[in-house]
């Protein structure tokens, strides 16, 4: 499962209604942890055999995420096509994805642990519930070589834990757990021949009123009064900062 989100460094402009960002002139990229989810799927396939199917939902622009995944080595793709799928609640979004992949009867489903836009961190877990699969979140190591799946999960404050569960199963993958491969020129050429199946999301799911609705979005209220130093001149700011740390904050 891969989601396309606004580029991390993009300047976000809030729309006139104050309900979402202006998407017209944005650049997009794959949500960070979803890239690691794909990498983990490719690694499991290389060790165990099988095929990797990538699934993404959204307007035609998400084809760039799909094509990139195919170029990195995914075997084929399912594109759930629709314009406003990004604003679905995690429950509705997971419902759409469940409908799209149920018939594939996957042995393993990989998702990122949370998206870089809404950051709900729920779609994977709800998808597991809908498909009737056991799951583990924040996975940082996956061993699919045995009869049962063994997964190392990250807990808080530097603790870890291994879980064992039967397959099929769903895992949400933490960012940074491996080195993501680049697409090779050969991969990019091969991707052109790979299948991208377009499917339509079930109309009744998309039309259902959402139980959580964004009323407005805005720049965060500052909790602290930040003194910005240097006025664009980093060196002057540094001189000023050293003085302030000494005389005002008294930390040096």
């Amino acid at each position, binding site marked *: 499962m891969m989601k396309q989100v606004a580029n991390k460094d993009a300047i976000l402009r809030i729309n006139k209604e104050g309900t979402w960002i202006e998407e017209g002139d944005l650049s997009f990229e794959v949500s960070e942890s979803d890239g690691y989810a794909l990498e983990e799927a490719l690694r499991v396939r290389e060790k165990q055999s099988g095929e990797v199917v990538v699934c993404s939902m959204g307007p035609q622009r998400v084809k760039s995420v799909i094509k990139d995944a195919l170029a990195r080595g995914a075997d084929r793709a399912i594109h759930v096509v629709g314009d406003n799928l990004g604003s679905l609640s995690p429950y509705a979004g997971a419902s759409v994805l469940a409908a799209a992949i149920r018939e594939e009867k996957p042995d393993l489903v990989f998702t990122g642990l949370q998206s870089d836009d809404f950051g709900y961190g*729920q779609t994977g*877990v*709800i998808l597991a519930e809908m498909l009737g699969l056991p799951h583990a979140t924040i996975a940082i190591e996956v061993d699919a070589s045995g009869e049962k799946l063994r997964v190392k999960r990250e807990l808080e404050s530097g603790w870890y834990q291994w879980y064992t569960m039967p397959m099929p199963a769903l895992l949400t993958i933490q960012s940074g757990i491996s080195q993501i491969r680049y697409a090779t020129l050969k991969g990019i050429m091969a991707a052109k021949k790979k299948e991208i199946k377009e499917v339509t999301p079930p109309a009744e799911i998309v039309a259902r009123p959402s139980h959580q609705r964004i*009323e407005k979005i805005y720049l965060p209220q500052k909790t602290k009064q930040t003194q910005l130093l240097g006025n664009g001149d980093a060196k002057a700011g540094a001189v000023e900062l050293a003085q302030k740390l000494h005389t005002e904050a008294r930390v040096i």
Partner: protein
Amino acid sequence: MSQGILVFIEHRNGVLNKTSLEAIAAAQSLASQLQQTVSAVIPGEDVATLAQEIASYDLVKVITATNAALRDYTPDGYTAAIESVVRQQDPQLVVMPHTYLVRDYAPKLAARFSKSLISDCIRAQVSGSAITFTRRIFLGKLDADVVSDGAAPVFATFQSGAFRPDQAQKGSGAEIVDLPVEVGEIRMTPEAPFQEVKQAVDLSKADIIVAVGRGIKSKDNLALAEKLAEALGGDLAASRPICDAEWLPIDRQIGSSGQTVAPKLYVALGISGAIQHLVGMKNSGTIVAINKDPEAPIFDIADYGIVGDLFEAVPVLTEEIKKIKGLS
């Protein structure tokens, strides 16, 4: 009709996870505005001692959802246990701390009620009988006000730090109700939790920390930050991407998956300030941020900021500090 607020208490082997107290504070604050009562639920095998501790807070009821299969946390076990308590209690709102454990099972719980969580909230405002939740989106760059339409219960999780544990009000002793629950089949088997390596560096004791993020660009550039840390007499730390890239060892990582620190001075170099990092350092005394992106969330919590190129600012800062300290 659904009423009351149910708050989820997280623990490991009966030892309370302190963010549960923040969840109690959140629930109490909402309850007083909504003129509702708060009950707590603790799943486990035998949690009688913890229930006593929780019953000292201003709650009407502490429900222990018990079953031998709930001794160790599993998403299947916890989902089934809390689902049956929610169905029996029929609350208007379920409040949980936004911990890794809650993130693991609570979406599954909410899905049993055909909905999702309003997750990782930083505030909630009550007007009449309606609650507006605020959550961070786009990695902390924007805030969104979210309302819940439709049937109760609403499931909400609160970010660590949204409320303080000491805001949880003590009461006159809540009633403790033991509720044995059915949990059905549990498909996953946990092994014992462990720490990877004995933490070699304990940054929680450091007075001064210089932390680097993606903005440092390469491992070679770490020398710049090292020199600054040396001049300040502080320790070097990093945000997650730096440790993932193995430019610094994992025991130097600050944030939800690394260490939580509160030094007198925290200098963030090229760190944008994703929530996962901020929770690990936002209680620092004086926070300095140097970043080229004026929109970076780190500036929201910084006392002093320089919007600009850290490669220009840091060498000058290092020299100036040496001058002040009489080191050069």
